[in-house]
Structures are given as C-alpha cells and as structure tokens.
C-alpha cells in the first residue's frame, strides 16, 4: 500500500498536473504581433489548440517563445480572459448564471469591429467555444443593421449595379423594413 503511494507521488512529480501543489506553475510564453509577451498558465494555454499543437505535437520545449504574428496584444488579453474563465467554470457544477454574466461583461466595451477582429483571432487560434460565442455575439449585434453598415463592417464592396440591387431587394422588400439602426 505504502509503496504504491510513493509511486504515485513520484509519478505526480514527473508529469506535472498537480504541479500547483508544489507551487511551480508551468508557463507557456507567446509573443504577439506587436511584440508583447504573455505568460500563460499551462492549463489555459492548452485551451488554445494552435498553441497546444505547437508544443505537444512537435514536443517543443516550454522554454521556446511561440510567435503569434496574426494576433494583437489586446486580443490575446481577451482570449486569455475568456479561456481562464472557461477553465474555472469547468469545475463548477452550476456555472450557467455566472457564465452568462461573464459573457455579457466580456463584450460590453468592445465595438462591433473589435468583436469581429477578435472572432477572426479566435478562429486562427482555434478556440472553438470562444469562436462559437463570438460568432453568436457578432450576429446579435448585426442582425438589425442595414446593408451599408454590414458592407462597411466586413469591408465588402458592392458589386451589384443599381438595377441588380433593386432586383435582389425586390425579392423580399419586407426584410429591409422595420430595422433599428442605432449607431454602434
């Protein structure tokens, strides 16, 4: 009995999941496009698939600083914020209300354009649950907007001529009515 406990203790030390017990958190370091450097807790870093793949699949040492040339510093801050909360809520039995409250605050001060940028980043970093949440958040914000707003937001050019545009519009004129166009 005591032998196995000893074995367990030694196994624990080698693999590191209860490294917290020994007060040494494994950290992963990334550098974003603007040169900012972030130290992530291992458990949070592993939520980000692109980071997980980089370190685990290629067995790269945690001492390497992973470059993230497509990610801005402010975006990394938000991603870390969300993933940290997600990990925290994983262990909670009934985190529904807390999650909802957190999500509302998370998007509160972000413009729709920033939200969209963050969505693309979540996609690049491969954090599925964050991507799902952000896609939903963006769709909520644009659902009552008009065509011009959406073109501007996504940087899309209108390639319809006037006649074509009117033709497409005429297929469902009611869809262009009764919008609320609050400026965002």
């Amino acid at each position, binding site marked *: 009995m005591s032998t196995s406990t000893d074995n367990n203790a030694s196994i624990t030390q080698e693999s590191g999941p209860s490294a917290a017990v020994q007060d040494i958190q494994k950290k992963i370091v990334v550098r974003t496009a603007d040169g900012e450097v972030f130290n992530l807790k291992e458990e949070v870093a592993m939520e980000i698939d692109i980071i997980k793949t980089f370190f685990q699949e290629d067995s790269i040492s945690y001492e390497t600083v992973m470059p993230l040339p497509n*990610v801005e510093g402010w975006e990394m801050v938000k991603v870390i914020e969300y993933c940290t909360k997600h990990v925290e809520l994983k262990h909670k039995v009934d985190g529904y209300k807390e999650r909802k409250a957190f999500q509302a605050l998370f998007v509160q001060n972000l413009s729709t354009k920033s939200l969209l940028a963050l969505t693309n980043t979540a996609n690049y970093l491969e954090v599925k649950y964050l991507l799902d949440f952000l896609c939903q958040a963006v769709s909520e914000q644009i659902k009552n907007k008009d065509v011009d707003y959406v073109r501007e937001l996504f940087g899309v050019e209108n390639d319809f001529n006037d006649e074509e545009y009117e033709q497409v519009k005429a297929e469902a004129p009611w869809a262009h009515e009764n919008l609320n166009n609050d400026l965002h």
Partner: protein
Amino acid sequence: MSDALCSRRQKQVVLSESVDLDCVIVEILSRLPAKSLLRFRCVCKAWRALISDPYFIRKHLSCINTKISTSYSLLIRDEIFQSTEYEAILKFLSHDGRVPCRRLDFPVLDRLVIIKRILIVGSCNGLICLILDYHHFLMEESFTFMLWNPCTGEYRVLPKPPVHSSRECFFGFGYDSTTDDYKVILGSYLSGYEYVVVFMLKRGSWRKIERLNRYFGVRRVGCLVNETLHWVLKEEEDGRLITSRIVSFDLAEEKFHEIPFPHPPNPNGFLIAEVGNPCNCLTLVFQTVYSDVEGTLKMWVMKEYGVKESWTEIVNISPEVMDEDENIPLEFMYDGEPYTYMACISDNGEILMQLEPIGALALYNPREKKYRTVMDYPDYMYETVPYIETLVSPLTGSTGATV
C-alpha cells in the same frame, strides 16, 4: 463559395489575417435570423450566392433547430395571411392596441384562390403546406396542395394526387430525416375506398402506400411530433365521438400505430378532442360535454413520447374561467365542433389558445386561471399556425437535390 473574386476582396479587409475568413463569415451568418439573411443578400454577389446556397440554408436551419428556445412566428389567416412574432404576443398588453403583424403576400397563382377555402395542413422547418381548394363535398377531382415559405415567398403547387378526395379525408405534412425529404400525406377512410398517398418533395410525385398495416378514420389534419404525424381516432357511436386513442403515422416507416389517451373519456358525455404540438411534445386536449353543459377542458402533454404513463395534465379549465376583465367566460364549442386550438406554450406556462365563438386569440394563464385576449376579430373565424422563419425552399427541400 468558390468565387475567386470574393477571396481577393476578402484579403483587402482590414482585419487580422486569417486563412479561414470565409469560414468565420459563414459561421456568423448562419446564426442570423432569416429576415436579416434575406436583407444581406443585397450586400454583394458572393453573399447572395452563399445565402441562396442549399447547404448554407441547411446549416442555418440546423442552427435554428438546435437553439434552446426557438422564437416562433405565427401565421394568422382570416381574410388575408399575416405573420406575427410569438414574443410580441407574450409582451402584448391590451391597452397597446393591436399586436404588430406583418401582412404576407400570398403567392399570385394562375387560378382563382378563395382564401376562405384554404386549409392549412401543417408547418415544418419553415414550410407551410396548404390545400387551396378544400371543400366538404365529394367531388370528382382531387385537392390541390401547395407548399409555401412565407418568409422567402417561394411556393410550389404540387401535382394533383392520383386519387379522388372526399369528406372522409385526412392530411399531414412533415420532414423525414432518414431520407432528408419532406412528405405530404393524403389519406381516405371512406369504406371500400381506403388509401394513403404520399408526396415526396425530392421525387416530385405522389405514391400510393401499398400494404398498409391498417386504415383508420381520423380527424382531418395531423400534427407533427418526432417526425410522426398524429390524429385523434374517429370512433363514433350515435354520432358522438367516443374514442380514447390517438393514431400515429411514422414518416420514415410509413406505418400506422396507436397511442392511448391518458384515460378513457367519460362515456356519459360527448367528447371533443384534438391533438397538437405546441411545445414540440404531443399534446391532447379534450373536453367532455354533458347534455349541452360544458365540462372541464383538460390538456395533457406526453412528456416521454410513446410512454402512456408520462401523460401529464397541464391544464384543467372549468367553464367558469373568465377573462382578466371578468367579462367574458371562456367557451370552447362552436356548433358542437371542437374549436380549441393551442398554438404555443411559453416558458412561463401561458398557453396561446384560439377560442370560439369569440373568434379571438387568447393567452391563458393556468396558474391564475385567467385569460387575456390578444387578438380579436369578431367577424371572421381564423386559424393560427406556429412556424419558424427559415430559408428552406419548397422547390428543393433542405439540400440542393433538384427534382
């Protein structure tokens, strides 16, 4: 979405560089309500192509169907067709005037259509199935069916069924996921002339179902639950309905089965019964009337499909229930025909019901045992059908398989 022009354009976007920019846009768009998507078809040619693409439409539909609380629209028909949001009805207070409704443009057909002769057969995934020329009399010809998406305006008049229609006909409409196809059912229980024919949307034609296990006389329009149609069995004695069973027709199997009532109705009374699916669960409404005095109206929900013991009584309305202004009592009968139609049940348990002879649409609160009228058209009878707003095409169904 293989438009090279679009890919080039997307790279001009001032956003974080991403290989899958297209994929993000698709994910965002598929979470939008149908109305927004119809509008955004005008954004650019690439978006128009995406939003019209059958695979995108299917993805959009599955997003709607997996939402925890679907927002229903209601199709209301009296002299014209109108659509309103169920949420708007819940928030409606009588002093606000009228519930905001959108008038729908009924398709212009090359024949005369009398709106009053239209029978709504069912709604499924945003498609409404109707009969354009419903009548009670035996005719030489057959009924004309139509599939309509009131959101996109697309419609399709189906070829005539290869059978005669009669007063002893029943109908249903639904989706069968095993074949990814929409089916319209037309059956007859006229003695010596029983049949069931099914129209399959992808094939575009009617087919007679051979070797059916049995035939039933059932009440006209079936309700759809779990890809199965349900009707109340029409067992009569001396002209009175005495049934205690629901007949189901599995759209995949194409066979009839029976589901018993929660309990047999009181044989001394005269039963009025109807099935519905206001909360996507099989719901049964019945009321026993004794010597022209209305009995209690009961509503049961089958919480676990197919399990008789799971029938749960959710509503028990005695005839003395009044409206919130204490003016008009609820009445459920009209010329001896059942006319309670439960459209929806909201999260707080309020039930949207259609009443006669007032002809109104009311919200009944089972806890307070009061109801409030939300729509009142004293001159016309009208039907209410819940549906969801989708882009599903009645021409092709969910996927792009062309007929």
